[in-house]
Structures are given as structure tokens and as C-alpha cells.
């Protein structure tokens, strides 16, 4: 989604009513943020919206990016936020061989997840298509990519091939490198 560098663009204050709505939406989408919401997004703080290409809006507080939201999708936390609160989103894991592809912006394919180094949640914690997940990597602690699942995890297991996440936000992409100050 953000393969190219993002040029600096205008930012604007978000209305407090809109901010309340966003907060609600964020909590709805990510119940995992519930305990931290006061730290992540204090009621008082003034949220700023930065326009990104492809009709995506990035929300920041004091030039720390919080999350971005495509015009037709749910909000997705920025990786820096995820690194600070890794427990807030469900995660899957890719094997070591896949890391370099993910970090150069390739779509995430199923074999990277089903191989021995990868990890998918068990059947009872299965994730549906459309869920936003963090992608960890074998032997690493931090999450290296975040994006929306194209297929459910059970389907990945049974099929073992095909696209899992395309258009994610990954370490070192344009959004990651973007300067906000």
C-alpha cells in the first residue's frame, strides 16, 4: 500500500466529535486496545489527520503516528503503535525465508505461514477473512507487518497456497519512513 515514499502533506485538526467516533471505532475493531486506550489516545489529546495517497488518512498525536484508515476500511494501527502494544492485535507468524520478501513489499503468501517456521492460530482461535492481523517472524520478537487477512486462517491451513495479505503496512515502507515533524 505504501511502497513509495510519502510526500509530506497537509495535516488538520480532527473535530473532537469525530475523534470520539474514531476512538469508539478503534476499540470496536481492536478490543485488545481496551486497557491501553487512555495511553494511546487520551481524551484530551488533539488528534491530527494527515492525508496519504490513495485516500488513506493517517491519525497522529504530537507527530507520533497512531493508526491509518483507508476510506473504505477499518482503522489499522501503525507499526510503531503495535510495537508498543503488541498484545492488542492477533498475530500470525511467517518463516524466516519469507521475511525478506515481506520487507520488500511482496504480498504475503500462504506457504510462508504453513511451513514449520510459520504459525497460525488453532482451530478454536481461528481468524476470519477481513481481520487485521500482525505478522511476526520466526526468530524475531517484533511484528514486521500488519494487514487485513484475505482468507480465513483455517482456509490457509487447508489450501496451503495463495495470497494471504496484500497491501499491508510493513517495516521500512513509505509510511514507516515518513517524517511527521
Amino acid at each position, binding site marked *: 500500500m505504501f511502497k513509495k515514499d510519502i510526500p*509530506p502533506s497537509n495535516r488538520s485538526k480532527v473535530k473532537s466529535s469525530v475523534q470520539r467516533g474514531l476512538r469508539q471505532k478503534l476499540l470496536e475493531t481492536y478490543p485488545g486496545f481496551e*486497557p*491501553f486506550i487512555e*495511553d494511546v489516545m487520551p481524551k484530551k489529546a488533539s488528534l491530527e489527520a494527515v492525508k496519504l495517497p490513495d485516500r488513506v488518512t493517517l491519525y497522529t498525536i504530537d507527530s507520533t503516528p497512531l493508526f491509518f484508515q483507508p476510506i473504505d476500511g477499518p482503522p489499522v494501527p501503525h507499526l*510503531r503503535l503495535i*510495537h*508498543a*502494544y*503488541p*498484545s492488542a492485535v492477533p498475530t500470525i507468524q511467517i*518463516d*524466516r*525465508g519469507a*521475511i*525478506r520478501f515481506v*520487507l520488500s513489499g511482496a504480498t504475503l503468501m500462504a506457504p510462508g505461514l504453513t511451513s514449520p*517456521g510459520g504459525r497460525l492460530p488453532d482451530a478454536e482461535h481461528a481468524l476470519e477473512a477481513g481481520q487485521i492481523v500482525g505478522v511476526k*517472524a*520466526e*526468530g*524475531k*520478537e*517484533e511484528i*514486521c507487518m500488519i494487514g487485513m487477512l484475505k482468507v480465513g486462517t483455517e482456509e490457509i491451513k487447508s489450501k496451503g497456497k495463495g495470497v494471504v495479505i496484500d497491501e499491508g503496512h510493513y*517495516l*521500512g515502507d513509505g509510511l*514507516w*519512513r515518513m517524517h511527521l515533524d
Partner: protein
Amino acid sequence: MAEVETTPVEQARHVVYCGVCTLPPEYCEFGGTAKKCEEWLKENDSDLWDKLYSEDALNANLSTLSVSAQERAAKDAAKKEAKAAANEARDSERKAASKVLIKRVERNKRKYVTVVIGLEVFGLENKKIAKDLGKKFATGSSVTRSPAGIEEITVQGDVSDDLHDWLLEVHGKKIPESNIELIEDKKKKKSEGPV
């Protein structure tokens, strides 16, 4: 990471990011500037360096991949690194070759505007600099697109000498003095030479 509590907490974790490639250090090897990153980490966070670059860790990394995949990955990494290095070389060459031009343009007999061209090559943002200059000299200052399609900063008034000094003072680290050139725009005889 090193300073992260192990128990799940209400608090934000603090993650160290590499000063060279901005990724978390454990991902530096995929960033294309692995050598530099390693040096940076060694200097800035030796605990973490021990953890990531000790021999055990390196071996553990390698053992999980098949030999052919390892080779491919290594090749890919080398390619990436070469590309990054080439990029950097080209960038610095371009920097050395290009100049920041400070022009004094006559607007109306005794009135002048000062035009600055070429700041963006040195990693400065025209818009921000224009704002700063406006504040510094208390004059109008704007980014305009010249007929040739190049962005330039136009500062009202003749501030070329002051501007030259200011650039060196504030952004001297980014721009070597020899790369700044003062130009007087035509018509008039040359009264002040370049500093």
C-alpha cells in the same frame, strides 16, 4: 527487546529502533545496510548487540533454512546492499556536484527579491525553509515554481548575504560552504562579489 518488561503491562513498551535503517535492530539484516546497522548498534546498545550478533544467534538464524534458500537469501542481501551503497554514492556525488544558488533579482530599480534554488538536493524542505526565512527576515517568503518547473524560494528584499550566513549557521552541516553560490542577476554591474 532489552528494556522491555516480560509481564504483560498497561504500559507502552519501548522499542529500540536502529539509527541507520530505522527498523527494529533484529530486522536490520533485511534493510540493505546491515554492516552499518551492526556498527551503530554496537556503539549505541551493546547489550542488544550481544544478543543479536553473537555467534550463537547467527548460527541459530542460519540453521533454520535449507542450504539453497540460504544461498538465495545471501545473494539477495548482497544485491540489496550493493544497491544501497550505489544509491548512497550517487546521492553524495549529486550533492557534491550541485550548488545552492542565492540570487538577487532586481524587481524595481532599487527593490530586490532574493531567490534560492537547489536546497532540496541537500535534504531540506523548501516549504519549511521558506517559512523559517520569512520569520528570520520578517518579510514575505514563499515557494514558487519557476517557469522552468523548478521549485525556488523567493524572499522579499535583498537578504542574500544574510541568507548565506544563515544557511551556513543553521544548515551548515548539510550544505558545505563551497556549494553555496551568490549570484547577482544581470543588468546591473557587479557591486558585491561572492563571499
